[in-house]
C-alpha cells in the first residue's frame, strides 16, 4: 500500500513529471524515485547488480530447500 509521509504530501498535487527532467530537478522527482538521464549509466550497473541479487536470493531459498531435504 502507500509509502511515506513525504509521498502523502504529494498526493494532493500529484502529477507526472516530464521524462525530460534530470534527476534532482524538483522535489517531486526526488521523492517519487524516478530517474533522470544523467543517471542512466550508473543505473545500468545497478540493473546488473539487482538481477544478480534477485538470482542470488532465489538461490539461497533453493539452497535452504536442499538443506531441508536432509532434515
Amino acid at each position: 500500500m502507500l509509502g511515506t509521509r513525504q509521498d502523502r504530501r504529494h498526493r494532493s498535487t500529484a502529477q507526472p513529471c516530464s521524462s525530460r527532467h534530470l534527476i534532482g530537478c524538483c522535489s517531486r522527482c526526488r521523492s517519487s524515485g524516478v530517474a533522470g538521464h544523467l543517471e542512466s549509466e550508473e543505473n545500468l550497473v545497478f540493473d546488473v547488480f539487482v538481477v544478480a541479487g534477485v538470482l542470488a536470493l532465489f538461490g539461497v531459498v533453493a539452497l535452504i530447500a536442499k538443506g531441508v531435504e536432509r532434515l
Partner: protein
Amino acid sequence: MDAGTVWAGIAQVATLVLLLVLVHRPLGDGMARMYSSLRHMRVERGVYRVIGVDADASQSWQTYLRGVLLFSLVGVLFVYALERLQAVLPYGLGLPGMTPALAFNTAVSFVTNTNWQNYSPEATVGYTVQMAGYAVQNFVSAAVGMVVVIALVRGFAARRSGTIGNFWVDTVRTIWRLLLPASFVFAIILIAGGVVQNFLDPTTVHTLAGGTQTIAGGPAASQEAIKEFGTNGGGFFNANSAHPFENPQAWTNLVEIFLMLAIPFSLPRTFGVMVGDKRQGYAILAVMGILFLVSLSAMSIAELGAGGTATHVAGAAMEGKEVRFGILGSTLFNTTSTVTSTGAVNSMMDSYTPLGGMMAMLNMMLGEIAPGGTGSGLYGMLILAVITVFIAGLLVGRTPEYLGKRIGSREIRLAALYILVTPTLVLVGTAVSLVIPGVREQVLGTSIFNPGNHGLSELLYAFTSAANNNGSAFGGLTGNTTWLNSALAVAMLLGRFVPMVFVLALAGSFAAQDKVPATSGTLPTHRPLFVVLLTGIAVIVTALTYFPVLALGPLAEGLVR
C-alpha cells in the same frame, strides 16, 4: 462518539459476518471441487500445451517448490524490466523508468503478495506497468499462496503418496476459474459505486480558490477488485482505499472488506472437505474468528477512547481517517487488512493511537492467521495446529498426531523453523537498520520522521509488514532510500519463499505417511478444547517473540501518554 455511530459500526460488522457465513460454504466447497477435479477446461489445456506441462502428472514437493520459485523469479524479473523500461512503453503517461532500487523493491513487493509501495503511484507509474505488471501479479501472487496451502492439505489427505499435486495446474485453475471471474464481477460492482475505470491522462482543473489541481484517473476498478480479493493491497493511488476514486462510499468500503475476507474465511471449509472431516475446518475457522473479533474490538476501543484536545474538538479521533467511513468503518477496514495479508488502508495508521497502531502490528506479528492472506493464512494456522498438537502431547501425554499423521522429529523441526523465519527477519532487519554505522545515520536522518518510541514503531512496522508480506505502512517512514528499498525487498522475498519451503516439505512428509487410526490417546482436534489451545499457542508464541520490542515502541508510547 454517539450511540448511533457505534450501532452503525456494529451493523456493519453484523452484515459482514452474515455475508461471510452465506458465502463460505459454496466458495469453500467450490474450491475443494476445483482442486480435486481431474478434468481440465479447454483453455487450461491450451495453457499447459504452451508452457509444456504434463497436466496429469502429480509432483513431489521438491518439483512443486521448483515451480513456485521459477514462476516467481520470472515474475520479479518481468516486473522489474517493465518498471525500468516504462519510458518506452505505451500508456506510460510520459513518466520515466523507476530507479533500480525502487524498481527492485516494488517488483519483489508485488510478486510476494506484499504490495509495499515506496512511491506515489499516480506520479511514478503509467497504466501499462499498473496493468501488465502489478495487476497481473495481483492475480498470480494470490494464486501461488493458495496453491501452496492446497498442497499442504493434500499432504494431510494423502496416504503413502510421494506427490502433492501439480503446481501449474493448481495455479492456472485458481486464476482462470476463481480469481478472474470473481474480480470481473466485483470490478463492475465497484464501478457502479463510483470507482474510476478509464485510460485518460491526468486532468487539470481549476479550483474554487483560483488555483489548479491535477486529478489522476486510470483503470483503477479492475485493479481494485483483485487487490482486495487476492489480499494484495497495492493502491492504484497513493492514498490507497482512502482515495475516493478507489473507495468512494460506505458500501464500497464494506464490499472491499468482504472481498479481503471471502477466500481466507472459506479456505478452512475447503480444508475440511478435502481431509474428509468438515469439523476440522470449523475448528480452524473458530480460532480465526475469535482472533479477528478480539483484534477488531481492541483496535476500535483504542480509537474510540482516544483523548486529547483535538479529539474533543472534532468529536472523535478523526485525524487520518475519512469522514465517510468514520472510526468503526476505518478500524474494521484496517483490522481486516492487517489480519489478512492485504495491507490496503482507508485511514492512516500513523495517526492512530499508539495502542490502536500496535494492534495493527500485532495482527501481522501473529503471522496473519486470523484469517490471513489467500492461502498463507491457512497454512500458517495449520503449522500452529501441528505445534499445538505436539505441545499438548507433551503436556498431557497424548500421541502427537494430527489428522491421522504422526508428528515426528522431522515434522516438528520443519514447523519450528517455519515459526522462526518471520520474527528473525523482522527483528534482525529492524536491529540492523539501527545499529550499522552509515545505515543508522541514513535511517535516523532521512527515513524516520518522528524520533523516539514512535520512530521505532515506524521502523518495526515496516519490517513486520514486509516480512509478513502485508504491505501496509505506518506512513511516517520515508522508505524510498537505497537501504530500506533493498532491506525491505530482501525481507519480503525471504519472508515469502522460505516459509513456503518448510510448508511444502511438511506437505511432502505428511503425504508420504499412511494414516494412523484415532485411538484413546489421540487428541481430538475438532473440539472447543483444541480451539482454546490453538488460540493460546498463537498468542503466546507471538507475545514471547515480540513483547520486548513492542515494549520499547508502541507500548512505551501508549503508556507515557
